[in-house]
């Protein structure tokens, strides 16, 4: 809210320059964003928190200023010249729905001259961002910004039977509001009606039919109190936020209603003349007396951890209107730890109902800066997340492998998400999205990864290796399920050309190698198996499984997939480069990494040399490297150290339907140097087994 410095001065003598006032208000809880100059003097832009509707007017803010500078408020006593005729004879007010309208006051002015506002009024309103309309409308606005209480002026002659009925809107009832929009109202909405139709939406906006114009002569000034929740509902339902609804939904001061009406009548008489009918029609079905609230020093000390002197407590609470009275039996002993003050909630502070609320009032005006600083005593060890160690290790390893970490917004495009979604998964769809490209919580990390690769490719970055540790989201039987996943994406060159090296394309083997590097952290026990995913190239895709700890057998539980993006999808997304993707569920992976770390045991370094033998095998297509390894391992040669694939080719002298695989087998004994005879014996066993099991032959060299 915009605050005029000069306007505040009308209510309290604080004698502080605007810059100082800015700081002091900020430190009391009214944040001032900026100070500007205007024709009506300096303007402070105040950020009033939702609990302080009393500060949505200059008078209420002046009360804070008065408390800050410990200065008295100047009394607010509008002077009225009332005629002999009574307002009560000119109009009638009925409240049919007191749950929506707790008070309704009406004053009547006869024979006013509606005309443009004088300069001072126009300038003040313009300085706080309001357009000037005419003197009567401007005055009702002016009083709202002065006292924080919204008012409305009706053209009395346009009210059927010149009376007011406050009621719920009838089903389907329609009304044109001041902004010229025809609106359909609902039965939860409070309307101000005359004898026949709605003429205003209570606490939100007036109607066009009874609007004050330059021809209006006789006025009814409404100053009422509307229920905050009802106003908020109505204004939301109609998509209509006004200065009035803003105040009523936060809670206006019902006691202020009559005073604001008097102040408006005073100003109208001054600026528009006319005759003010005597008295006010005041229907007040929900008058409430503010409750008594206690503030005890004991509680203050317990919450704040520091003391505040009696005099400060009493001055602050008095200045804010709480009328503190010591009620403990230790009256007179200043600073007593047993001191208790009984306070009265003022009508403008419905937000203050408990001792803690009073403690806050006292503390903020005493000054947060006056309290000493401490660190709380620690009674428990600080714990990281269960898998922090494994997660960090994984992240560091990926970074070392050249992958850049990304962080994405999980709200994604619905159709994109569908491409990568597992069949049967129910996505968590946003019911009220702001944009189509952010209309569902992603079902996979891949969908975000592809978008990140795409962005970079479109911005000239062609060689990419990215990873994300995020979540996927879905609904299972209507309940949300969030699954942490690790997603990898790579494209372009694995190695860029330099002075010293040639370039090389990133391929499936790179992805597999990187993943196996991760697998080594997880104990090196994961297995690759065939699988199909609609979005992966079936010839270059695999499933990763890790041994299931719940079963003793060698069965594997799949934790993820890896492969090359299917060409048809790459084309659809206009990605020309080969894209490699992998997605693994993090929880089993982290558990495996953690477990592997625990189980890892030292192996003595070999004291005797290893001996390598190469076997150039010719195998039938379809035989896998794993089959070769398994066949060799099945021999149970204790000195077998490793089996590597050393060379692989097809064609040339190799007949079609076959391929050549060179394996390099290393033997090593922990007890002795192996003899040529032993090696020869093992070699012939290996060849025999491969021939027998897999039909392998040795390639003639």
């Amino acid at each position, binding site marked *: 809210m915009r605050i005029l410095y000069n306007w505040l001065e009308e209510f309290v003598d604080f004698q502080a320059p605007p810059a100082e006032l800015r700081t002091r208000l900020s*430190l*009391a*809880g009214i*944040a001032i964003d*900026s100070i500007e100059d205007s024709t009506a003097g300096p303007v402070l832009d105040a950020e009033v*928190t*939702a609990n302080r509707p009393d500060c949505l007017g200059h008078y209420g803010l002046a009360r804070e200023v008065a408390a800050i500078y410990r200065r008295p408020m100047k009394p607010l006593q509008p002077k009225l010249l009332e005629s002999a005729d009574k307002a009560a004879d000119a109009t009638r007010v009925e409240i049919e729905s007191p749950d929506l309208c707790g008070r309704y006051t009406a004053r009547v002015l006869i024979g006013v001259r509606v005309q443009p506002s004088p300069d001072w009024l126009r300038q003040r309103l313009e300085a706080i961002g309001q357009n000037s309309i005419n003197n009567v409308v401007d005055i009702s606005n002016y009083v709202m910004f002065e006292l924080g209480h919204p008012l409305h002026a009706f053209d009395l002659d346009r009210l059927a039977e010149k009376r007011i009925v406050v009621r719920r809107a009838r089903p389907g009832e329609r009304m044109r509001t001041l902004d010229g929009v025809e609106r359909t109202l609902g039965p939860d909405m409070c309307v101000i009606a005359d004898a026949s139709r709605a003429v205003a939406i209570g606490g939100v906006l007036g109607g066009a039919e009874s609007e004050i114009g330059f021809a209006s002569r006789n006025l009814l000034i409404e100053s009422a109190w509307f229920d*905050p929740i009802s106003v*908020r*509902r109505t204004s939301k339902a109609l998509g209509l936020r006004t200065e009035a609804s803003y105040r009523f939904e*936060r809670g206006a001061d019902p006691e202020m209603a009559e005073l604001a009406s008097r102040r408006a009548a005073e100003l109208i008489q001054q600026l528009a003349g006319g005759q003010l009918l005597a008295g006010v029609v005041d229907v007040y079905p929900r008058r409430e007396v503010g409750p008594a609230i206690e503030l005890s020093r004991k509680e203050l000390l*317990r*919450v*704040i*951890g*520091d003391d505040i002197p009696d005099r400060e407590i009493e001055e602050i609470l008095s200045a804010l209107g709480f009328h503190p009275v010591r009620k403990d039996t230790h009256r007179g002993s200043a600073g007593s730890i047993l001191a208790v003050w009984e306070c009265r909630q003022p009508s403008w502070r419905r937000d203050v109902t408990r001792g*803690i*609320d009073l*403690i806050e009032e006292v*503390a*903020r005006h005493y000054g947060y*800066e006056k*309290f000493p*600083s*401490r*660190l*709380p005593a*620690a*009674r*428990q060890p600080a714990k*990281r997340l269960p898998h922090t160690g494994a997660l960090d290790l994984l*992240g560091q390893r990926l*970074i070392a*492998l*050249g992958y*850049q*970490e*990304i*962080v*994405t917004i*999980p*709200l994604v495009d619905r159709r994109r998400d569908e491409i990568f979604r597992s069949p049967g998964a*129910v996505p968590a*769809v946003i*019911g009220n999205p702001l944009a189509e490209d952010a209309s569902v*919580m992603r079902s996979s990390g891949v969908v975000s990864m592809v978008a990140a690769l795409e*962005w970079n490719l479109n*911005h000239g*970055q062609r060689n*990419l*290796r990215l990873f994300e540790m995020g*979540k996927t*989201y879905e*609904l299972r039987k*209507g*309940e*949300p399920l*969030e699954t942490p996943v690790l997603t990898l994406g790579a494209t372009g060159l694995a190695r860029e050309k*330099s002075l010293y*090296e040639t370039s090389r394309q990133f391929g499936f083997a790179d992805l597999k190698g990187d993943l196996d590097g991760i697998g080594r952290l997880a104990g090196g026990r994961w297995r690759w198996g065939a699988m199909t995913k609609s979005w992966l190239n079936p010839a270059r895709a695999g499933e990763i499984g890790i041994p299931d700890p719940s079963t003793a057998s060698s069965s594997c539980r799949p934790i993820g997939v890896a492969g090359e993006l299917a060409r048809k999808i790459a084309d659809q997304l206009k990605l020309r480069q080969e894209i490699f993707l992998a997605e693994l569920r993090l929880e089993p992976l982290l558990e495996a990494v953690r477990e592997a770390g625990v189980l890892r045991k030292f192996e003595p370094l070999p004291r005797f040399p290893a001996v390598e033998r190469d076997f150039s095998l010719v195998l039938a297509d379809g035989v896998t490297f794993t089959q070769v390894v398994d066949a060799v391992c099945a021999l149970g040669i204790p000195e077998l150290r490793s089996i590597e694939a050393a060379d692989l080719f097809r064609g040339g002298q190799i007949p079609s339907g076959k391929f050549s695989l060179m394996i390099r087998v290393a033997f090593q004994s922990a007890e002795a140097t192996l003899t040529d005879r032993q090696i020869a014996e093992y070699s012939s066993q290996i060849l025999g087994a491969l021939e027998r099991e897999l039909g392998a032959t040795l390639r003639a060299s």
Partner: protein
Amino acid sequence: MTTDPTSETLAELGATSPEAVREKFAVLQARFDADIARRGSDADEQPALAAEWTGRKAGALTRIAEHWLRPAPAELKRVVGQEFQKLKAHVESVLEQKRAELDARAEAASAALDRIDLSLPGVERRVGTRHLVRQTFDELIGIFLSIGFSVVEGPEIETPYYNFEALGIPEHHPARDNMDTFYIDGSRGNHLLRTHTSPMQIRTMEKQPPPVRIVVPGKVYRRDNPDATHGYMFHQIEGLAVDTDITFCDFKGTVEYFVREFLGPKARTRLRPSYFPFTEPSAEVDASCHVCGGSGCRICKFSGWIELFGAGMVNPAVYGFVNYDAEKLSGFAFGMGVDRLAMMKHGITELPLLFGNDVRFLRQFP
């Protein structure tokens, strides 16, 4: 050319007294020195020379050992041995010295030719990068771990109860104005995307008895139209400390410690009263402007202060929702925008940069 004396025995050479033995050795040494003087500094000749004298099979030293030392009569054995060792030490050390000289000369000569251009790039293995937001989380979590805060995480798809009601924000509360919310279609519990990490305050207190001291890092969502500083999603870290003796002074000390750790020992902290439904008293935590140091500039709107995050003492009403005794317990809570802190620290003005994942941006924070 004289015959090679080392192919004959000393006796054959007529050296039968110690003096004669010494003389024979002296002659050999003189011959070696002459050889060295003639050929020792020639890089091409030097290896041959070394082989002639120290070659394992046919070098002069081997032959002396064979022909002079081994067959020497007992009375001469000692003197021959001594003389042999002397000669051997002399030959080996001179040869070694010559070789070193030659090596040094060769290296100096080749260095002039092979000197690399130090300004040429090396072979740099491209390693990856940790995302700036994650780096910031690491830093923040590290600071709070150091003063006893444990880390917990919670769901992003929440219920209205945890996100709003139990935090004192019922439907139609004006505080919901700043928390426009995405709702999930077809969920059983009218689920929503959490608008802050605060629901974990409730979930944690529901699960564990006091004392509680946690931080909650995570993603949160607001239904805001995206601009330079707003997006559908951002990151928060929530803090909560509840115990029988936690006061506003502990709260103040904790945030001051945090600000100094995060922004440096010179950063000053200011608590400005504010309002949040689930804290009371509430505060905005300001730090002295990191750009101007507090004297006032464009970044801090000439106030000298930058708003960091909201915080406060836990509103006793919250304890009611988790069966904590509000009369015995007290605590504080805070919620920081992590992206904002990272942006502030590194002078980033556009939030979308953080989630666009342009590798040129990522590489700036290695």
